[in-house]
């Protein structure tokens, strides 16, 4: 057996060991992911939407300050975004309350 063949053998054994050990070792957890909890997914989604709505409000203010939008439109859109943000916050609040009750 030449040196290169020996090296090849070492590489094969090393790779088999690296990928094989997790298959035969004892693991703390058995499942990769917990089953999808629609509440968590909704909560995650709402957190992102909340952020985006708040950013949109800031941008709307910026657009108004730089005279890109008229005052009536600004007020209407601000009202709409604030309503949207309030809705999201209320929804988040409901989810939090429901979760806390469940935990209690």
């Amino acid at each position, binding site marked *: 057996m030449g040196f*290169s063949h020996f*090296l*090849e053998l070492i*590489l*094969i054994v090393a*790779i088999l060991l*690296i*990928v*094989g*050990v*997790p*298959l035969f*070792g004892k*693991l703390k*957890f*058995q*499942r*990769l*992911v*917990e089953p*999808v*909890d629609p509440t*968590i997914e909704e*909560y*995650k*989604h709402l*957190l*992102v*939407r909340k*952020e*985006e709505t708040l*950013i*949109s409000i800031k*941008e*709307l203010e*910026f*657009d108004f*300050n*730089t*005279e*890109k*939008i*008229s005052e009536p*439109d600004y007020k209407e*859109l601000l009202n709409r975004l604030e309503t949207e943000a309030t809705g999201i916050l209320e929804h988040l609040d409901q*989810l*939090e309350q429901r*979760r*806390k009750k469940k935990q209690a």
Partner: protein
Amino acid sequence: MNDIGEFTLLLALATALYGCIAYVMSARGNRIDLYLSADKTPFIVWVCVTISSICLWKAFLTDDFSLQYVWAYSNRELDTFYKVSSFWGGQKGSLLFWTLLLSTYMLVVYFQNRNKNLRVVPYAMAVMLIIVVFFLFLINFSTNPFERIPLPPEDGRGLNPLLQNYWMVIHPPTLYLGYVGFTVPFAFAVAALISKDLDDGWIRMTRKWTLISWFFLCMGNLFGASWAYVELGWGGYWAWDPVENAAFMPLLIATAFLHSVMIQEKKDMMKVWNMSLILLTFAMTIFGTFITRSGLIQSVHTFDEATLGYYFLAFLFVIITACTTLIIARLPLLKSTNELDSFFSRESSFLFNNLLLLGIAFATFWGTIFPIISEAVRDVKITVGPPFYNQVNVPIGLALLALIGIGPVIAWRRATLSNLKKNFFKPILASLIVAIVLFPFIPLGNRAEIYTYVTFVLCAFVVTSIFTEFYKGTVSRMGLHEESVAGALTAMTWRNKRRYGGYIVHIGVVLIFAGIAGSQAYGTHTEKHLQLGESFEIRGYTIKYEKLVAIEATNIKTRIIAQLAVERDGNRYWTGHPEKEFYKGQNQPVSEVDVLSTWKEDLYMILADFQEDESATIKVYVNPMVSWMWTGGWIIAFGTMISMWPDRLEQRRRLDRIRKQEQLFPSPAQE
């Protein structure tokens, strides 16, 4: 060493194949043991491909001509610098280089995301590994760079002289970094479709990757143009060559994606559109490799051994079919309930921009594949040239340029007519002034000249619109925060890097438009056969042929250099040295042009021919505003850097989200 290189390629293939299967099985069976096993494979694949690449580089550097690939693309006299770049000079090495970059990207993605969304990441890694498997399969079984020659020759055939240019070290890797980079957002998009995790999480996870890939593809295109300009010696930088088009199309679609994705983030809509755009971008990168490696379409970029077309075509077919099926299957989940607030809004301008970008991409695609279609239908290969592309793409390009100026002025969600009038006043005024000032000086005799005139006017419109945006933002911030001009400008840009970085990129794009318009419409050239001491004039320059020198640069390279004195207003202004290089064993000499580049114009000189009596044929081009394009490229690089710079506010928001989630749901929160 070659044995090891070849063997590690096989090992990489086997490991990648195992990784794909194990990742998918771990996700489907929810098995952490399989996931942990699969999770080792990206690193192993990277190590194997890196070892293999090092072996090939070593073969080049040690002149190991027992390898057919090294023999074909190198020789003993080749500069070390080019021996390194010969690695990707041919098809076999370029595929290995592609795989090296892909496995490196995959490794970075692996380190970035292994503890994040475990519903999506295993599928994303599996998709990337499938693509790696495809390339490794080709390298191992169809185009192996470690193929041996039974009786190794004393010396190699040498690298094509056209590739012996410093751009060879810069342009292909840059372009490949762009091409390969789009694998990452593509993989996450497919993973989101498979795992049904279809909110904008995949977009957030891959936003930087998309931007980096876009940047490299953009710079790759510009570097390619620059290389063509200084090396091919025809006075131009873009010829609508099929392979140039192949690199241009994904750039256009990715640009559309970068814009439309903002609407999804803001309004949670256009999910199908964005999904389709990123899948199309990736498909176009594979189409690009198909063009260079199929031999079906003639191009200066086509590899000598372009025989892999059918593999790439089959792969392309699989990708498109699988992705289309997935999108259709997930349509109910991709539907959005939100709508655009108004037709007059920035969102609408982004939509128009998408349509225009796709219009240019489609026209370019049609022109590129037309020879294949015409041959299939009428048995005659009809190639469409620059007139077709210019006729279709220039008007769409001008509409796109106008939109770059309109976008910043319009508000998100809704714009009012009275405000539009007020905000458009300055940009329109600036463009009118430019139109009036330029009118007496610019010829308007043909369509190209009219287009150029319109381009300059629109450039003024866009630049004014962008600077007004910076000005208004700075003034507004100064009023709110009592800051100095510089402080307000810096803080405003820094707090909204994406927006203002984007505006800076747009300024770079404007310069590129202006450079293309100026150089295409107002350039001139002449060709003269001169005896020593003779001279001629071109656009105010007097060119005097002074001498012809022959230099034996190396054992294989002879340089014939013409010395040309350039005079302006009777004074010596510059001395040009265009040359011809002759390489041993190569039939065709290579022209090395000499260029005097200024902000106004380039004086571009070529030694076209010479005789034994030292007379020479000299070709001179005067190309206005070419340097504007290269400057535009650097400005794009600067703007992209600002856009990509890590945003602490965004990171803080992300951590805040995770913290809130962890508080409420005790299991580790994953994003």
